[in-house]
């Protein structure tokens, strides 16, 4: 293992996977250790395909994936906590059963930590998993992911379908997890506002292509809203315009601040604005 491998929690190079009617096209991204990366994209953009390829649930056609500097293996999965959009715990099991099963699957299982999270999330001990609410199911999945000293969390839509209160609670827990510098998170969601609160890096996926992958703060600083006429926009460098919405009286556009004249009055954007404008422009 060389030094650069140690510095990245995840390295994906030229990942390609083709299905009927969909292609994940040469995806390359790097998640530095200690950081949180959000994978943003509309439904069907390729977020789950990317995560499933990383975890070995799907075989990919081309490319390389290194997780914590290694190729994926069963042994390596001890160091990875995973939450899938559909949690996957057998419906008839209660927390006691889940605890016994996990204790015997993970050699690095931390039973105290699991007990702590079960208490913190107020999860019922004797209720069947099928009787859990969606929020409780997700919290149990997160409790499992956090109870075996994982270095990397891979979360596929962990906040979808949850109420804002539970989503906020989950975001706080994930923020706590990355207080340790050796901990990293890859999280996918189409709820962009959640990722905006949480992530250091943002990767935009649209129709199987990576549109950009950048530090969140850089994106928010670099891209800005402008209001201009169509004529004014046509005079700008085409590369500067990331997306536009044509209104009755003027056109609202998101532009790369570095590529437009300083005379333009600009306003800040959110990551959601950038994603929506870019995706629409691409369409």
């Amino acid at each position, binding site marked *: 293992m060389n030094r650069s491998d140690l510095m990245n929690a995840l390295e994906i190079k030229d990942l390609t996977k083709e299905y009927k009617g969909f292609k994940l096209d040469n995806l390359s991204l790097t998640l530095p250790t200690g950081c949180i990366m959000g994978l943003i994209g509309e439904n069907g953009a390729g977020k789950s395909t990317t995560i499933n390829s990383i975890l070995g649930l799907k075989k990919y056609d081309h490319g390389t994936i290194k997780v914590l500097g290694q190729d994926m293996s069963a042994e390596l999965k001890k160091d990875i906590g995973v939450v899938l959009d559909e949690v996957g715990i057998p*419906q008839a*099991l209660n927390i006691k059963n889940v605890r016994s099963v996990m204790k015997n699957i993970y050699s690095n299982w931390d039973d105290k930590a699991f007990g702590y999270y079960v208490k913190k999330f107020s999860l019922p001990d004797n209720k069947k998993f099928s009787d859990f609410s969606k929020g409780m199911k997700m919290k149990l999945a997160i409790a499992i992911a956090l109870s075996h000293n994982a270095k990397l969390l891979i979360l596929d839509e962990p906040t979808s379908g949850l109420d804002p209160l539970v989503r906020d609670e989950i975001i706080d827990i994930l923020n706590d997890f990355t207080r340790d510098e050796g901990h990293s998170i890859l999280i996918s969601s189409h709820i962009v506002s959640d990722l905006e609160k949480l992530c250091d890096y943002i990767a935009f996926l649209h129709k199987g292509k990576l549109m950009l992958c950048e530090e969140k703060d850089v994106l928010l600083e670099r891209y800005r809203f402008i209001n201009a006429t169509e004529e004014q926009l046509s005079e700008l460098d085409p590369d500067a315009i990331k997306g536009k919405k044509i209104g009755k009286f003027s056109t609202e556009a998101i532009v790369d601040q570095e590529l437009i004249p300083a005379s333009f009055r600009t306003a800040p954007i959110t990551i959601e604005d950038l994603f929506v404008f870019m995706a629409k422009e691409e369409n």
Partner: protein
Amino acid sequence: MKGLLLKEIFVMFKNNKLSIIIIPIFTLFGIFNKQFMFVMLIPVLLSMLTLGNMTYDELSRWNSFAQCMPLERKSIVSSKYITMVLMALIGSVVVSAVHFIQSMIYNTVDARSTLLMALASFALALVVPCLSIPLNFKFGTTNGRIFYLIITGVICGVVPAMVMSDSKKFTAKAMKLFSNFPVFIVLSIVVIVSVIVISWLSSIRIYERKEL
């Protein structure tokens, strides 16, 4: 493996309480009734619970979740086969016990026939799961059941026709083999173990190539 087996047992017993209640009822029927049919159903019923577990796994998306844990795919497959064999063994022990108690009641104790019953019930219990498990891994439990029925239909249509075409010769050979009891027992065990191993290896091969 211990974790996987625990999961299999939890899922099995929590989802199949009725099937498990039926077992002592069938056992009592078997002891006090000369009709042995009820008892022979016990190992079949028990080993078939493994197939039920596969359906529950599919419904809860356990297979994808298990793949995110430090588990080899062959361990996941093996846990199904270990559970299946355990269930068939339990059923077979129940059959032997009932047969023995019954023979004591009717004063017809015969160790050979009890052993034969145990072996026959064990083999009977494994027929459906050994064919179904690889098909379920390959096609999913719903389509797997359809393929199972097609294959069973073809076998049931072809094999009896082949046997009946030369039934006298076949019966003579079977009787000769059966009359040599030790050879028959050893041969039966070899066939049963071979069927389990072929089914198990096929399932591993299928599951290791499968996209979840």
